[in-house]
């Protein structure tokens, strides 16, 4: 299990393969569920140039650990890797990686989803967006689903 808060850009796929080579019992797992969150260049109708992520050092790590432990007691997965960025991010930069290895797919999918959703509501991170003009703090998480496509004419 590895949980990290990083101040510098990271490559989620490189992190995944590095962690898998050194830490995951490859012969035992039958499933790997992965979520990567990346920065959009728009939010709530505005272009976003840059985002600054702040956190509460110490409490963040403690909350992430408790979220992962809680998920593991509910879905007995084999291993997990969670990396979350802080600092200044540009559009397309990875923000968060959640990876869960398990013997079975349902456990991997459900634990991965739970960790991500719990993180969004409980880990003390805050986002400030730099717009074309001015800055604003993000006040709420999105619902997590893309809006439906408009009906064809």
């Amino acid at each position, binding site marked *: 299990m590895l949980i990290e808060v990083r101040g510098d850009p990271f490559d989620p796929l490189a992190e995944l393969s590095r962690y898998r080579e050194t830490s995951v019992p490859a012969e035992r797992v039958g499933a790997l569920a992965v979520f990567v969150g990346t920065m959009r260049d728009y939010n709530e109708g505005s272009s976003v140039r840059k985002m600054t992520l702040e956190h*509460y050092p110490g*409490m963040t790590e403690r909350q992430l650990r408790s979220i992962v432990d809680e998920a593991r007691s509910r879905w007995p997965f084999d291993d997990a890797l969670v990396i979350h960025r802080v600092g200044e991010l540009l559009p397309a930069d990875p923000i968060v990686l959640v990876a869960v290895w398990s013997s079975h797919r349902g456990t991997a999918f459900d634990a991965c989803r739970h960790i991500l959703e719990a993180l969004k509501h*409980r*880990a*003390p991170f*805050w986002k400030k967006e730099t717009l074309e003009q001015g800055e604003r*703090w993000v*006040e709420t998480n999105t619902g997590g689903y893309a809006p439906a496509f408009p009906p064809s004419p």
Partner: protein
Amino acid sequence: MGRAEEQLAFENLACVADVWKAVCQGKSLPENVLCAVNMEYARADTPVGDGDEVAFFPPVTGG
């Protein structure tokens, strides 16, 4: 509150809501403010004691 960190010395602070009042000129703790004591989530009526680290912050937006 607009402050990252501050060491405070007060008498007669029983709970988290009292700490807020002491640093915010007697105002009540708003409902949408999150609280933590020693880095665990807490409530307005969570007791506080000597040496505790009390934090107040807005809704979180990570991920």
